[in-house]
């Protein structure tokens, strides 16, 4: 019985591993240049390519286990060793289980625009104002906290 359960688990694991491998292959496309550069768009005399930063990550895990059931009181004296072992194995198989889970995500941000024209190639950077503003607010907060602490220390020393 436990062998059947193990076989079923191994078959399921193999199928899930194949699915995960397929998923990983799809997500690892993020490591290709095609993920970073957009398709060129031509408008009039200019061709524009968008360059973006891409990051992707993921993880997965799996587990298999069986519940250990303690022998019932008086079981040892009444049932033979072989029967007890068989019962225990069947019970273990009935109480076994497996699980698997995974997750992942990806993000992208435009970094620059490549403009190809008759006058040559130009690279124009793209500034993410939200990110810069957030960094500025964080730095201002840190500086304000430091200055406030310095003033407090000075006031304490003056007393």
């Amino acid at each position: 019985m436990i062998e059947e359960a193990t076989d079923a688990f191994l078959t399921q694991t193999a199928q899930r591993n194949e699915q995960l491998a397929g998923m990983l292959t799809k997500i690892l496309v993020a490591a290709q240049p095609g993920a970073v550069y957009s398709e060129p768009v031509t408008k009039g005399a200019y061709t524009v390519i968008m360059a973006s930063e891409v990051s992707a990550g993921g993880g997965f895990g799996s587990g298999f286990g069986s519940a250990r059931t303690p022998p019932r009181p008086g079981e040892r004296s009444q049932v033979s060793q072989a029967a007890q072992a068989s019962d225990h194995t069947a019970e273990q198989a009935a109480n076994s289980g497996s699980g698997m889970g995974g997750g992942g995500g990806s993000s992208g941000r435009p970094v620059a625009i490549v403009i190809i024209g008759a006058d040559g190639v130009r690279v124009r950077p793209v500034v993410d104002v939200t990110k810069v503003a957030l960094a500025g607010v964080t730095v201002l907060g840190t500086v304000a906290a430091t200055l406030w602490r310095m003033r407090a220390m000075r006031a304490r020393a003056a007393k």
Partner: protein
Amino acid sequence: MRRLTDHIQWRTMSGQPVVAHDLVVIPQSRALVLRLPHGFWVWNRPSGVRVEQRGRASDLPIVDLTRRIQLGLLGVGMVIAIVGAVRIGLRSRYPGDPQRKGTPA
């Protein structure tokens, strides 16, 4: 035995060339790939473009201005925090030293 390079890879790759006017533009990217036993992480960013024109090639770097501004702000913040912490430390250690502008005890 697995080596570190099996888990961490820093790849530089070239994309499909784009032909426009008499220019051939080859986009290039750098990717950091982390392969872990139960996961992975990929960070891919554009590094520059190679421009070929009449047999001559030149490289145009792509600068991540947002990242540079962020790092600059972080650097400024860290310098101010460190200077402040050092001054606080000096004041508490030498409270009466006029050289260090502390108040006489």
